[in-house]
């Protein structure tokens, strides 16, 4: 039976990430993909991590679930506290018990994430058998139950389909079924709808919200789409060059963004609902910097219209600009 998690506590978050730092050792040098970030997630909430290519959002997700390929990656320091226990200290064996059961993940392209040689029903049953010790028949029943839950039609027939026989939306539903099959406390969704058509995206977002209400799973949602974040997240973290530039409840991020990068990002999106036709979009000049060649001081300084001498010399700390709203910018220190 699906069990609903009802306990929530602000002082006892489900996930607490402390000073997480992840590097990649490449032939061209060491890349600091995440530079000592801190955040937390309460039970039952959705935290959105937004940012553009190279900002570190996927590396953050992979670090939490310990799927960073090592070498060349290495989680250098920090703590990942899940239900009060630092899982960064876990052995590979202990971590295998966490993955799929306490923390599960859904990926961007379902076609490339699912095993093309295995029937979809078996892929999910496999997870259930592994973590819940059910018999093959028991796992099969649970799988069909999950398929019903995620809206896959004719689930007993679909059980025997191969991924390539399913549409993108159906594959993603199957991945969600797999991710939720063992009632994880935390589901990490890495760009779960980016590869899907917009009407299918709406169905999948609806499904994720519905399941979250029913099961109480917390969601760490990674996306570059501000619209998706506005729909789904309770709180938002904006990342840039491996750092958290701003974090706040979702309404505050959209109504009163503080960081020039966040403001720039929001202004550069064409808004379908806007009544006034904007002739030109406000842009952030320049390009996202290469992680091999970050500017000194604030990493956004070379593209920031508001930067001044201090920004080029020293990196600002992450400070509170209002209750539960943090910003990493010299303008507010």
């Amino acid at each position, binding site marked *: 039976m699906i069990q609903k998690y009802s306990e929530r506590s602000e002082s006892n978050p489900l996930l607490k990430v402390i000073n997480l730092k992840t590097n990649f050792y490449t032939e061209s040098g060491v890349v600091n993909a995440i530079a000592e970030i801190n955040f937390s997630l309460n039970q039952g909430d959705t935290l959105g991590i937004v940012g553009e290519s190279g900002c570190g959002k996927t590396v953050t997700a992979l670090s939490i679930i310990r799927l960073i390929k090592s070498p060349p990656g290495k989680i250098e320091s920090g703590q990942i506290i899940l239900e009060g226990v630092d899982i960064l200290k876990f052995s590979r064996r202990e971590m295998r018990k966490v993955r799929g059961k306490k923390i599960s993940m859904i990926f961007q392209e379902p076609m490339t994430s699912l095993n093309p040689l295995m029937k979809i029903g078996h892929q999910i049953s496999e997870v259930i058998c592994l973590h819940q010790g059910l018999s093959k028949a028991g796992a099969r029943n649970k799988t069909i139950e999950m398929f019903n839950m995620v809206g896959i039609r004719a689930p007993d027939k679909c059980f025997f389909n191969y991924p390539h026989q399913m549409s993108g939306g*159906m594959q993603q539903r199957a991945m969600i079924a797999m991710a939720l099959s063992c009632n994880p406390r935390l589901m990490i969704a890495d760009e779960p709808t980016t590869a899907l058509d*917009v*009407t*299918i995206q709406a169905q999948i977002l609806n499904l994720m919200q519905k399941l979250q209400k029913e099961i109480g799973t917390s969601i760490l949602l990674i996306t570059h789409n501000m619209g998706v974040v506005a729909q789904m997240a309770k709180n938002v973290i904006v990342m840039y060059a491996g750092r958290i530039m701003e974090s706040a409840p979702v309404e505050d991020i*959209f109504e009163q963004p503080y960081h020039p990068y966040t403001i720039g*990002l929001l202004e550069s999106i064409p808004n*379908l609902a806007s009544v006034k036709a904007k002739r030109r979009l406000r842009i952030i000049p320049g*390009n996202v910097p290469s992680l091999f060649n970050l500017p000194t001081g604030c990493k956004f300084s070379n593209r920031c219209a508001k930067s001044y001498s201090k920004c080029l010399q020293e990196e600002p700390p992450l400070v509170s600009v209002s209750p539960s709203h943090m910003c990493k910018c010299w303008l507010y220190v």
Partner: protein
Amino acid sequence: MSKKNLVRTESLFKYYPIMKGVIPKVVDNIKAVVDVNLILHQSETLGLVGESGCGKSTLGKLISRLEEATHGKVFFEDENILEYSNKQIRKIRRNIQIIFQDPYSSLNYRQTVGSIIEEPLIVHFPNLKRSERKEIVKKLIEDVGLRLEDINRYPHEFSGGQRQRIGIARALILKPKLIICDEPVSALDVSIQAQIINLLQDLQEIYNLTYLFITHDLSVVKHISKRIAVMYMGRIVEIAESKSIYNQALHPYTKALIAAVPAPNPKLKIDYTILDGEIPDPLSLPDGCSFHPRCPYAFEKCRFNTPELKEIEPYRYVRCFLF
């Protein structure tokens, strides 16, 4: 204001045959583009929007003759270019250019930026001297936001957005009348998308270009287009001015598409009662209106008959029995 037609398609069809059997026989067809009648006005941007498999990219390729139509006509400046000989097609390519979606695979990684951009000049204007070509490239490079030093560099040294600028320069060098933009910003980061969108708009004014802007992104298409054509399963289902598409969409599919776009505003949540079901398999299209199984307004007639694309107001078309 009179609008001159730059492009007009007439009953355009593209079928891809499915062959089966040891001695291959056509058993079925994928109807990628079905009976499309579209008009592009001089100097405007017409947005072409739809989800996967609707036929929008194929339609772009038919107009540029990168794919051959199964049936129909494409009039470019009042001449049917589908009847052109190979020699004539070469000439028309000066006037119809394309910008592709993937900035990584659409540039030859073995050629320098300068060489990529000047190649169309070598092909179409062989009498130009080398120094003359270089001058033309130099003038264009800065127009697209690149630097003179970039001419001798290779594509892999550039980011996605910069590569797209190279692709735009290549499309622009022959001073075409029409540029078909096939998802030109979909593969780019959000802040870079904005730069490229602004660039395309600026260039349109400087060079008096006409754009066919193909995309699945409704927000982008509304921003950049004057008019929008919506496609579903190979057919155009609605054409309207972009400023009215948001609040006054007529076709149930267009309404659902717009309702499904998540707004960057936490106070505007999506109404999920909108669209159910999957995009149908192109090999087993429903009878009648191809949208009827998913349509909340479908009635008996929709199941057996296909509605025509009707002009209900000047330049406002809809394909639906409700109208």
